């Protein structure tokens, strides 16, 4: 399905994501990596003192959409697949892979690349490539 090309909104939204990451670095000295923040609150428990701050950050993330609805009077545009077994599989892969690879789009893709981390550049190129192949197979080979 077609989506509208939104260069300005996307650039602006990206800027907000960047501002959030800089704020977190300036105040807590931490990388805004969502998979890291999520995995630290999950069992098995780790000896990490950043846990309460991670939870507060997640509360902020969760409040964004409700606040958006209050401000704009409508929900943000979103189309989620109704193929539930596929989404269940995708979730497992995203969760397992991001913890194994020490990061996801935010930690490697934004924060790591800005620090010119070789590991993050390799990670980003890797997940962009396999993501591209996954969509290619899903849409053009198996015709999902």
């Amino acid at each position: 399905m077609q989506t509208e090309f939104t260069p300005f909104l996307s650039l602006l939204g990206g800027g907000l994501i960047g501002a959030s990451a800089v704020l977190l670095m300036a105040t807590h000295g931490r990388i805004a990596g969502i998979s890291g923040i999520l995995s630290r609150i999950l069992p098995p428990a780790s000896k990490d003192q950043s846990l309460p701050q991670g939870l507060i950050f997640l509360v902020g993330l969760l409040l964004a959409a409700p606040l958006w609805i209050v401000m704009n009077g409508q929900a943000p545009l979103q189309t989620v697949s109704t193929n539930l077994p596929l989404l269940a599989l995708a979730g497992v892969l995203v969760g397992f892979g991001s913890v194994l690879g020490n990061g996801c789009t935010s930690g490697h893709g934004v924060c790591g690349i800005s620090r010119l981390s070789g590991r993050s550049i390799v990670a980003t190129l890797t997940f962009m490539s396999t993501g591209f192949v996954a969509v290619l197979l899903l849409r053009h080979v198996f015709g999902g």
Partner: protein
Amino acid sequence: MKNLVTLVSGLLFGFGLLLSGMANPAKVQNFLDLFGTWDPSLAFVMGGAIAVTMPGFWLVTRRSKPLFNTVFHLPTRTDFDMRLIAGSAIFGIGWGLGGFCPGPAVTALPLAAEGTLIFVATMLTGMAASKYLLNRQDNRV
């Protein structure tokens, strides 16, 4: 104050994801669909974010320490191991199949689409499983 700043950064991050279209799986999948309904918007999200973080990180890490912490927690590893490559490869497959990565999935959770609820549940399970296996492996060595 400290907690308020953290809450605001979470909100900013979520708003950025919503505004940019990253929280819409169809848009993410279209970015990855070069041979179909390609939507290059996501490149602008990354560009916009990096345009802020690159100078921003450089500027703030020149200070001796962060405002509310004693040190900057910056990753120091520079090696490329199988874990990094395999993990990122697996992550990318899931990202393509579902159109969600962790931040947008959490942000979209309150919109309560059935697919999002399932995705977040299995994502957290996958994370815990990965963490458990890595812990076990680390303890053995």
